[in-house]
């Protein structure tokens, strides 16, 4: 029998989830809170929203990269300063029912926090995290994973993968961590149908066909980077409010601010989410701001997602979840803007050559 894949019906899945919750791990999954689906630690398996489509309002990134956290705390009285490092992240956690796009977002965070000087806090949480993804059987209107090289059943950063099949779920082991999470639970589960591989491939094609947005070819990375000075950025970003909702909901945005929160005796060095679409992001104390215009700031958002890739990285940093498209109060659509910017830059290039 194939020991790395099974089919589970709804009851079996929930029973397994309940066992996981009862264990020593924190299990985080999508739950409905006041009508909005968000990731929360589960108290009971019944809370989890496990649907064959749809995504949570926020990505699960905050369970690895919290919205705000103390990097250390300190007390200071006169000249005696005492610093306390944060405790090692508490318990192992399972991120359960994560969409493929959001899991790919975690891989993008890994590239930042685990590269160069590894961030020990992030690394400790990452190490203690097992990711169970849930593939999609249908795309939402804003989704465009396949346009940026992703897949509704993508395997990136997944330790285990659930794929919706015949009203139940195919469960596949994709890593040692995933295998460990399944452990003995698999004893009662059924073997997958023989043709499950083809069924998953068919599902992938079906969902891809529902995604109407223009594919973004890898070559555009160079085109966009070459168009840094293009006047089109000001035009394309003209309606951006600088609210940075796009960055906060984005699974791959990883920029942060560091500030001291303190009173006269004690304080904390806090790290909190930040965004390149905010005016003060690059504002020097002298008043100089290299990104003084809306166009300049929005361009950074687009180029850091679609160009400016590190040596050897052959993928975009946008994973196509579409959250920023759905939630931007000014209606900016990053996938349309990338297409429009690339077209404008190529046009300007052609004009210059004439």
């Amino acid at each position: 029998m194939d020991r790395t894949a099974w089919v589970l019906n709804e009851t079996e899945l929930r029973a397994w989830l309940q066992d996981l919750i009862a264990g020593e791990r924190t299990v985080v999954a999508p739950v409905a809170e006041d009508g909005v689906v968000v990731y929360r630690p589960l108290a009971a398996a019944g809370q989890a929203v496990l649907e064959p489509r749809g995504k949570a309002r926020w990505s699960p990134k905050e369970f690895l990269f919290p919205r705000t956290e103390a990097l250390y705390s300190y007390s200071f009285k006169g000249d005696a300063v005492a610093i306390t490092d944060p405790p090692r992240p508490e318990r192992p956690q399972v991120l359960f029912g994560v969409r493929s796009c959001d899991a790919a977002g975690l891989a993008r965070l890994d590239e930042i926090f685990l590269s160069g000087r590894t961030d020990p806090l992030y690394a400790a949480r990452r190490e203690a995290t097992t990711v169970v993804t849930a593939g999609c059987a249908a795309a939402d209107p804003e989704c465009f994973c396949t346009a940026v090289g992703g897949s509704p059943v993508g395997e990136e950063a997944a330790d285990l993968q659930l794929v919706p099949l015949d009203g139940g779920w195919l469960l596949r082991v994709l890593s040692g961590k995933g295998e460990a999470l399944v452990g003995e639970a698999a004893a009662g589960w059924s073997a997958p149908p023989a043709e499950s591989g083809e069924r998953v491939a068919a599902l992938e094609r079906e969902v891809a066909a529902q995604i109407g947005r223009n594919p973004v070819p890898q070559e555009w990375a160079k085109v966009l980077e070459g168009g840094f000075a293009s006047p089109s950025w000001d035009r394309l970003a003209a309606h951006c409010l600088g609210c940075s909702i796009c960055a906060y909901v984005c699974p791959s945005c990883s920029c942060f601010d560091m500030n001291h929160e303190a009173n006269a005796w004690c304080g904390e060095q806090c790290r909190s989410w930040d965004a390149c679409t905010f005016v003060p992001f690059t504002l020097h104390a002298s008043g100089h701001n290299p990104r003084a215009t809306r166009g300049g700031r929005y361009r950074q958002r687009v180029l850091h997602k679609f160009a400016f890739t590190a040596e050897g990285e052959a993928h975009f940093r946008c994973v196509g979840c579409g959250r920023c498209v759905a939630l931007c109060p000014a209606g900016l659509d990053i996938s349309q803007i990338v297409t429009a910017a690339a077209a404008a830059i190529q046009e300007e290039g052609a004009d210059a050559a004439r």
Partner: protein
Amino acid sequence: MQPAEAVPNLYHPNLMRIAGFADETPDVRTLKLQFADAGEARAFTGWRPGQFGQFTVFGAGESVFALANKPWHPNGGAEPPTIECTFRAIGKVTNALRALSTGQTVGFRGPYGNHFPLDDWRGKHLVYIGGGIGMAALRSAMLETLDRKAEFGEVLILNGARTVADMVYKEEMPSWQAVQGVRVVRCVDPGGEGEGWDGEVGLLPNVFEKLALDPADRIVVACGPPVMLHYLFLSLGKLGYRPEQVVTTLENKMKCGIGHCGRCYVGPFSVCRDGPVVTWAELNELPKDY
């Protein structure tokens, strides 16, 4: 109960005691810092000229400054490390730092960033051009150059400021000038000269042009506000300097100092990780985002 195990922390600063300070101008101060803990002092591995550090004012926050004194190298405890920084009081952290006095405690983490390739410049003539507080980023390399003067050709130091009162390192310039083969030129912007000023008057790039140096075998190291660098590069181009001969430092706003916070990017180039030292040639390859 056992206390929870702490994570080794990239952001944990060393505690430093303010060992002394000198006021350079009404709003610029140079601090001398020494490790509060002898063990941390012994473990310190020193720095190379051009690197920077994050300095903490407890209760206010962190600020990035260049490590401004002659590089310290481990010496078996013969001489404990002293770190100097020269900063302008301009905002929240820097004003809080200026309010501190000798004996008080601040934090330091670093060194970060790349450095000036002094060894590659052996045998060449060197020009250091600093505009205002920009001198701080050059001082470490400059002092090392003066120390190893025999390895280099002529050294010219051009210290420019808006006004006489704004000029940094006034006290120590005579000791630079005293080194054989070193010439120090001081200059202030037109209108910034006072009664009895015996230095040059003019914008830095113009003053440099007037010196009419032969670009052959010369390296120009310049640091200053973005406008100054813009006009200086125009002058250097006119004078026939190749972009490879010109070196500067970028000062994008930054928070983490280790390539994670995403703030100091110039295109794919992260100033804290890949810089801050860049040649003009490298700068020409980057988008104008600084």
